[in-house]
Each structure stands twice: as structure tokens, then as C-alpha cells.
């Protein structure tokens, strides 16, 4: 799940809804902040107006009582006003004389008659602002002078409970958050569904491209194309055109490979004919000798031995050909002699070019590898090595078993494999088919190597000479790897 740590690698079906959700959250936060700030301002303005109206009415009612300093009537007005006050949630009302001594308060125990107003409240009487909000205690204070400026009678102060207003703010904020979160989630879900729908053709295309990669070139079915108009329909049709071209190229490659095989077979047949023809002259001579001097036991013995060697030589060549071309591909075992037989198949080519073969077959028992594929690869590489080597040079074949499989190394003393040919070999068949037939053998080796799940190492020496090492894993190991 390392892609989780790299947002750039997230699929579009995740990125687009997240982007929508992020944008909506940002927009929602901005709107919520604006609404909340506006609500707070409106509430304070409304509170200021209500408090002014409330205290204005009370001031008119109290003024005659305050003029007489009538404690009871002043208290009676305040007490009734507080009990009836739903306006601005008035919690406390205090009426004072101009010297800030309490005439009456709706809570007489907190503000006893005749006592001076606490300094913090007295300071509010001189404040030009008629509304002071104490956010830390969720209260607001409003005051209003009673009487005229020339003949002041006193003040009325009101303490208002801000909690109902704050509760409204919280409710509004909670509603805003809930609505915004709901809309954001909804849009993210819709975005996910839409993007998923939009990207469905990409998924189809990805599936068919993956099939091409694994070697199964198939066109996108017509029903998918019919569902998609516009860009994706056009893309599907182009893909199908491309897939057709790839399929044709693949068929061509198979045909070329078959032709290469036939050509190889032709060369082998020629070699075999030479190998068969070589002992034939001696054998015919031996037959003549037997006809004329068959009575002589020594001559008969020598001629018979010659005939036997010739026939054995022919037999070896025939058996090698039979093993190489009659055994079905995918055989689950290879014996050491299967490799040794290759010597007979390239003997003619080697002799023709005066190449010395150094044969180091260190295999001791049967191995669970695809013998036909290994022989075809080794034969191709040996023939290439013979062709690449100068006269009187040596071509070395080394085969040994390792813990994981079979290792076959073909080494020549030529001028070194060209880099593009080495790349062709390393491409395991994924490289493009070589043009003009050059490198077809190596391309075939690469494809076979891919089939058996093997690896190749190509080493070119400083003074020339090329060593190609094939590593072919055991079949069981391949299967267990594939299963893993």
C-alpha cells in the first residue's frame, strides 16, 4: 500500500472526490464564518436595540419613583419587569442614584438598598457605550441615565444573560457544519460515482492493454465501443486498429520463426547429409574389400569394424536429429545426453569453419527443465558462435547444474556480439521483431527463454569473445514462483 503515501499515485476516482470535498469544505468554512460573524453582529445589534427599548420603558416607569426615592415602588417595577422579561433575557436590574448608591435592585441581596454600587459596575455608568459584553461570563451590561442632563435622577443598569444568544449561535454553527458536511459528503459521493463512470472506458482500455502485454492481443468488443461515443469511442477504435496490427505482426513473427526453424533444419539436414556421406565412402570401400577379400579374416574384421564405426556415426546423427525434432516441446525432463547430442548437429558447421569444440557437459543426471527448449536455444547459440568465430578458434559449451536450475554457457572467440543483438537477447521476446531477418535466431532464443522463465547474461571480453550464459530454473520452482 505504498501508493497511499504518494498522493500523486492515487487513482482519479479518489483524487477528484477528495478535491471536490476539499473545495466544498473550504467554501463551507468561508460561508459558515461569514454567516456566524454576521449572526453575532446582528445579535449584538438586536440586543442593543432591545436593551435600549427595555431600559427606556423602565426608565419612564421608574422616574417618578426615583424622584421620590421610593424604594418599594422602584423595586416593584424592577421585580415585575424582571419576572416578565423574556426580552434579552434580563437577569438583573439595578437602579442607582447619581452617586451610584443602590435605590433598589431586582436582586436586593446582591445589591442591598443604600449600598454603593461595586466599582466595576460603577465604571460602566460612565461608559459612553450603552452595551458592554463580558464574553468570559456570557453576560452583557446595558445602562441608561434617568432624568435630564441638567437634573440627573440616577441610572438603571441591566445585566443580560447572553447564554440563550450563544446557544442560538451554537445551534446555527452546528447546523452549518452539519449541512456543509452533508453537502460535501454528498458531492464527494456524486463525484466518485461520476468519475468512476467517466473512467470506466479507461478501465476497459487498461484491461485490454494488459492482455496485449501478456501476449493475448484481443480487440475491444463492439458492445463497449457502442456504449462510448466521443473521445473514448475513437480511442477504442484506434486501439482495435493497433491490436489488429500487433496481431498481424505476431503472426508474421511466428511464421518467420517457423521459417527460421526450417532454415535451421535445412542447414542441419545438409550437415547431416555430410556426416552421413563422410563414412559412406569408407563404408562402401569396406564393402568392396569384403567382396574381394572377405575370405581373409583380418580384412573382414577390419572392414566390419569400419562399417560399424560408420554406421554408429550415422546412427548418432540420426538419433540426435530424432531427439531434437521429435520430442514435443514442454517435456518435463532433460538428460545430460540431450545436450551432448548437439555436438553431432553442429559438427559439420564446426568442421566446415575449422572450429574446435570444447565440450564441458558437467550434468550427471536428468533435470526437470524443458529439454526441447534448452536444446533449441543452445543449438541456436552454438551455431551463432561457430559463425562468429574465426577459423581455428574454439567454441566452448559449459553446462552445469546449480541449486536453482541449469546453467549453460556458450563462449566464442569472435569479435564480440553487437550491443543491439545483446539487447535483443536480453529483451526476452518483448523486443520488436528484427527487421530484415538479421538476429532472428537470437530473438527466438529470447522468446524461448521467456517461455521457460530463464535469465540471460551476455558478457563481451575486452579483447573480443562473447560469453552467453542461460540460467533455466527447474520447472517446479517456476511453478511455485508463479503460484507465489
Amino acid at each position, binding site marked *: 500500500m505504498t501508493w497511499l503515501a504518494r498522493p500523486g499515485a492515487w487513482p482519479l476516482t479518489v483524487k477528484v472526490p477528495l478535491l471536490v470535498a476539499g473545495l466544498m469544505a473550504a467554501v463551507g468554512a468561508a460561508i459558515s464564518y461569514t454567516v456566524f460573524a454576521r449572526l453575532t453582529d446582528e445579535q449584538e445589534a438586536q440586543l442593543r436595540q432591545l436593551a435600549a427599548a427595555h431600559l427606556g420603558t423602565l426608565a419612564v416607569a421608574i422616574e417618578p419613583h426615583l424622584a421620590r426615592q*421610593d*424604594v*418599594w415602588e422602584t*423595586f*416593584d417595577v424592577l*421585580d415585575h419587569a424582571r419576572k416578565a422579561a423574556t426580552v434579552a433575557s434580563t437577569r438583573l436590574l439595578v437602579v442607582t442614584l447619581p452617586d451610584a448608591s443602590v435605590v*433598589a435592585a431586582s*436582586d*436586593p*441581596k446582591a445589591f*442591598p*438598598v*443604600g449600598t454603593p454600587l461595586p466599582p466595576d459596575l460603577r465604571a460602566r455608568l460612565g461608559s459612553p457605550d450603552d452595551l458592554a459584553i463580558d464574553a468570559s461570563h456570557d453576560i452583557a451590561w446595558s445602562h441608561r441615565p434617568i432624568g435630564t442632563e441638567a437634573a440627573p435622577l440616577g441610572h438603571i443598569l441591566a445585566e443580560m444573560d447572553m447564554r440563550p444568544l450563544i446557544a442560538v449561535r451554537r445551534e446555527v454553527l452546528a447546523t452549518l457544519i452539519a449541512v456543509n458536511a452533508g453537502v460535501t459528503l454528498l458531492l464527494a459521493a456524486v463525484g466518485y460515482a461520476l468519475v468512476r463512470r467517466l473512467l470506466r472506458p479507461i478501465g476497459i482500455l487498461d484491461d485490454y492493454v494488459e492482455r496485449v502485454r501478456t501476449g493475448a492481443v484481443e480487440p475491444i468488443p463492439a458492445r463497449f465501443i457502442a456504449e462510448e461515443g466521443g473521445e473514448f469511442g475513437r480511442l477504442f477504435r484506434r486501439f482495435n486498429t493497433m491490436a489488429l496490427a500487433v496481431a498481424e505482426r505476431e503472426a508474421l513473427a511466428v511464421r518467420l520463426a517457423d521459417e527460421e526453424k526450417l532454415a535451421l533444419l535445412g542447414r542441419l539436414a545438409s550437415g547431416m547429409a555430410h556426416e552421413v556421406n563422410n563414412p559412406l565412402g569408407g563404408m562402401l570401400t569396406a564393402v568392396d574389400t569384403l567382396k574381394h577379400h572377405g575370405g581373409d579374416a583380418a580384412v573382414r574384421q577390419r572392414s566390419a569394424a569400419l562399417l560399424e564405426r560408420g554406421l554408429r556415426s550415422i546412427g548418432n546423427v540420426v538419433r540426435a536429429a530424432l531427439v531434437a525434432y521429435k520430442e514435443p516441446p514442454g517435456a518435463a525432463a532433460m538428460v545430460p545426453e540431450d545436450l551432448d547430442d548437439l555436438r553431432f548437429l553442429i559438427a559439420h558447421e564446426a568442421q566446415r569453419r575449422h572450429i574446435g569444440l570444447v565440450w564441458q557437459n558437467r550434468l550427471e543426471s536428468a533435470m526437470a527443465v524443458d529439454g526441447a527448449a534448452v536444446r533449441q536455444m543452445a543449438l541456436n547459440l552454438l551455431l551463432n558462435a561457430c559463425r562468429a568465430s574465426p577459423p581455428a578458434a574454439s567454441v566452448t559449451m559449459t553446462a552445469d547444474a546449480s541449486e536453482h536450475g541449469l546453467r549453460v554457457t556458450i563462449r566464442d572467440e569472435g569479435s564480440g556480439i553487437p550491443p543491439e543483438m545483446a539487447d535483443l537477447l536480453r529483451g526476452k521476446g518483448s523486443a520488436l521483431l528484427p527487421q530484415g531477418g538479421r538476429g532472428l535466431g537470437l530473438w527466438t532464443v529470447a522468446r524461448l527463454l521467456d517461455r521457460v522463465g530463464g535469465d540471460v547474461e551476455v558478457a563481451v571480453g575486452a579483447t573480443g569473445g562473447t560469453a552467453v550464459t542461460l540460467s533455466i530454473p527447474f520447472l517446479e520452482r517456476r511453478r511455485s514462483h508463479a503460484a507465489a
Partner: protein
Amino acid sequence: MPVRLKPGHDARRGDWSRRSVLGALCATGMMAIPGAVAAATATAPLRFGLTPVFLDSDTELLAALEGYLSGRLARPVVLVKRRTYQEITTLLVTGQLDAAWICGFPYVQFRTQLSLVAVPVYRGQPLYQSYVIVHDGDPASDLDGLRGQVHAFSDPDSNSGFLVTRYLLATRKETPASFFRRSFFTYGHRNVVRAVASGLAQSGSVDGYVWDVMAEMEPDLVARTRVLHRSERLGFPPVACQAARLGTPLVRDLREALVGMPEDATGREMLRLLRLDGFAVGEPSLFDGIAAMYDYVKMQS
């Protein structure tokens, strides 16, 4: 501060002479009244003054009283309420009211000009007490514990709501101004209870009958107060009229209606609402105790 009417003050009123004359005629047995005048007198409303000597804020009670009296007297009844005792006393003394339920203190002050129509009977006697009450949590154990406090009086012309406490202070050579840090009038016994219960005043002077009735009707409010001092029993606030009208048929009918309340279903309901046993024809000597306190206070001041 308006000047309080002195006993014998002569207020002028439009129909005062006519009523006096009619009353005098009736009293002297001169029955040859022209028919039109007699009809007018018979349908003239009874103007009945009320003071906060009882729970005059109870509208159900006031409606029942008006209904009962108008039924018994066969004439309309106008209940006249004013904020202070002084206003009602003034209206009564000047003949602008036919009768009024006043306090014993104004009756004593104007004893020469007023006559008793009837006196309520409370718990078997035409007597009641004055209470000095404090807030329920107040630690004071006697009157001296109230020194330096804020005190609520009911009315300067109230016996229980002012005179009794004034007298108690006078016996200590004190006045409300010297004894209390501050005092004020609430012009209603119920208001005194509210003032003390709310903490506006730490103590108050209140009619014991009103406090007792309120303890039944508004137990939550009264429970926040405690009686610190009960006075001796004194004459219950009486229903009084001008002395000159005592013998008039209207006053006589009123007295009969009041005294006869227990015999009438509506009257019994009235008495139940008032928590009274009935009304009796009281003697002026019932108020000698109040008069003695008044004299003592006057002498001290």
C-alpha cells in the same frame, strides 16, 4: 409630603349637606319625604372604601364582596380603593364615602368624627396582632437584633404596619430613623412580606392577620419570612362611617349585612375567603390599646 388631615378637618363636598339632611330627617322620624327623592336615595350606590388591611389585591374577593353587599342592600355598590390609608380616611371623614374598612389607627386618630359600623371577628375575637417579621435566614432573635437594618413598613397610618413598631422603638427611646439604617413604606401588608422575602428589607412590620392568611394562600412566599415579634392583641381594623351617618338606613343596612354574613350562603363564602368568623357590632373601647400606643408615641416625639 402631603399634610395629613387632622381630626375634625372639614372637607367640603357637593352632596354632603343633602345626605346629612336626609340622614337627620330619618333619625328624627320625619318621614314625609317626597317620593322622587326617596327613590333616588334608594337606588344611589353605596360607596365603600377599602384599604390594604386585608388582601385587597384579590380580585375574586373584591367581586364577591361587591356582589354580596349589592345583593343585601339592593343597590349598587362601588368599591373605592386608594393607594394609602390616608386617602381613604380623608374620603371617609369628608363624607365622600358612605363607609370604609379602615385600620384601627386612623379610627383612633379620627375617633370623634367616625363611628364603628362593624368589627371583624377573627379566631373568635374582634382582635388581631401586629407582627415584626424577618427573612427566614436572619439570625435576629428579638427586636434589638434589627438595629442598623433596612426595615419595611406598610403605611404610616397603619397600626400593625407602622404604629406598633414605632411604639416599640419609642419604648426604647428610639425612632425608625435612629434605629434602622433605612426604612421605607410599601403601602400594603402583602408588599411588606414580599420586601422581606426578596431581601429588599431585612425586616418588616405587618398585619398578623394578613400574614396568617398569606401563609395559607402563598406558602412559598411566606415561608421565606419568619415572625420575630408578635404584639399584644389589639382591635381588628373596623368598618367605620362618619359619625353623623351612623343611624342612617344605609349604614344600618350595611351593618346588618355585615353582621348577618354567617346566615347567608354568599356571606359565608365571603367569610371563608376572608378567613374571618364574622362581623360584630364593636365597642370603641376595643381600640383603647391602639389609642394608648398613639398617645405614648406622640408624647415621646
